[in-house]
């Protein structure tokens, strides 16, 4: 009997939870705020679903209810992607080591 592809996706999901668990525990507490903003940015990879929805309309009907929701989701996710990565970059640029004085 063939294995349902869902099982493969479930395996990826479960293993990723474990990867996430160990990776996030190793994040230094002083970077917890950038961690939140960057997780925000990467979870907006949901934009791929929105792009599929937006591109789905045919030539005579670019705007239907489904594609409109897709377009809106593209904008929302794009705010997060650009905002999330840029604000993380801005924060991380501020973390500096002590200058060796003397």
């Amino acid at each position, binding site marked *: 009997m063939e294995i349902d592809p*869902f099982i493969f*996706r479930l395996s*990826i999901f479960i293993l*990723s*939870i474990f990867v*996430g*668990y160990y*990776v*996030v525990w190793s*994040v*230094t*507490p*002083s*970077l*917890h*705020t950038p*961690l*939140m903003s960057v*997780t*925000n940015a*990467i979870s*907006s*990879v*949901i*934009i*791929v*679903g*929105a*792009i*599929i*929805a937006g591109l*789905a*309309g045919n*030539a005579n009907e670019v705007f*239907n209810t*489904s*594609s409109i*929701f897709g*377009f809106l*989701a593209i*904008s*929302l*996710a*794009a*705010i*997060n*992607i*650009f905002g*999330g*990565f*840029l*604000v*993380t970059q*801005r*924060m*991380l640029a501020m*973390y*500096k*080591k*002590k200058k060796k004085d003397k």
Partner: protein
Amino acid sequence: MISANLSAIFYLISGVLFILALRGLSSPETSRQGNLFGILGMIIAITVTFLSVGNFSSGLIYVLIFLLIGGLIGAFIAYRIPMTAMPELVAGFHSLVGLAAVFVAISAFLNPDAFNLGSPGNIKLGSLIEMSIGAAVGAITFSGSIIAFLKLQGIMTGSPITFKGQHPLNALILISIIVLIYLLCSTQSSNMFWTLLFVSFLIGFLLIIPIGGADMPVVISMLNSYSGWAAAGIGFTLENTALIITGALVGSSGAILSYIMCKGMNRSFFNVILGGFGATEQSSNSQNKEQRPVKSGNADDAAFLMKNASSVIIVPGYGMAVAQAQHALREMVDTLKKNDIKVSYAIHPVAGRMPGHMNVLLAEANVPYDEVFELEEINNDFANADVAFVIGANDVTNPVAKTDPQSPIYGMPVLDVEKCKSVLFVKRSLSPGYAGIDNDLFYKENTLMLFADAKKMTEDITKNL
């Protein structure tokens, strides 16, 4: 158009890059590179999506326009936002992830053909379950984050909003969500779908309103986690590896942060979620409010104490963020260092309104991160330090947490500030902190209260040094 297998490989690569992005955050040196990995992963995922759809005839221009609009808004916000507003920003971003997940689920429900999920009214059962879970969690994330945002912005009161029958009502709604998902899957009815979304929005709202301002670190982390699970749910629907990996990463990241925050307050997750903390304690406190003697001083006294110290530990809290005192504080520390006084910073895990809040503010003020220490790293040093300078923190320094089993914060890990030779406590008044309890530290022999705005007091001390 590229093949499904090839695009799946690229999605896997972008998922791996996202893991590396989080891995980079294990130290500030590698973090900037990590962020670039994240950006690269995102570029790959988006490019591959365009290539795999391959239909550039009609919608493409609009997709690009909406992408550009969102991107410009996002970039504008990222450059303009002050660092003190980071908790609000993150809450706002969470709400957008939630809403985007809801919108994608709606698109997929209305036009399942585009996603290879079947046809309207006849969507594959597995996809429908995944879709409805993704949509419900997304909706909860959205409305919950909106409430968190309003509370953090101060538009909505930060104190818990409770009413009779709140918990039974919430339980009822949560059960109805499960029933609705079941009905939706058995009937494929769009009415069920819309009702499910409405009820999920409602429960997100109801879950967050009873939670008070200082519990926001837990709430934000929890919503962070939810946004991940919502993304994962949609990822299963779209059969997209990048989305599944990311959802799992973000979901577990938020869960770990919630756990760390709860541990920092010695409270169980459920205790925080059920809300109402702080509201009930106030009444009992007002009864035994005897007048105890307090030593108060001015900037001159504080400067004198610090000038004669050889080591000073600074304990910042949410009050420092409110007063925007981080730059003034750094200037004061610079002056101290010129006098050969050793200065370090002690950060409690729940100081501020989100995990790592204080660290970002200090970094903004150019404080080197190797002078900033976590609770466990520095707690033993208080006994050897001459002066502890508490600025805007309160409950996290309260020795009652170690001595009085009756206290609501008993057992919470606190900074051993009272072990210092002398304590300088910058505060506007003697009012109790968030937990609604008096801080014993105010009345200690070696405590000098500095009643003033945190920023102004710090500037005055610098002048007197």
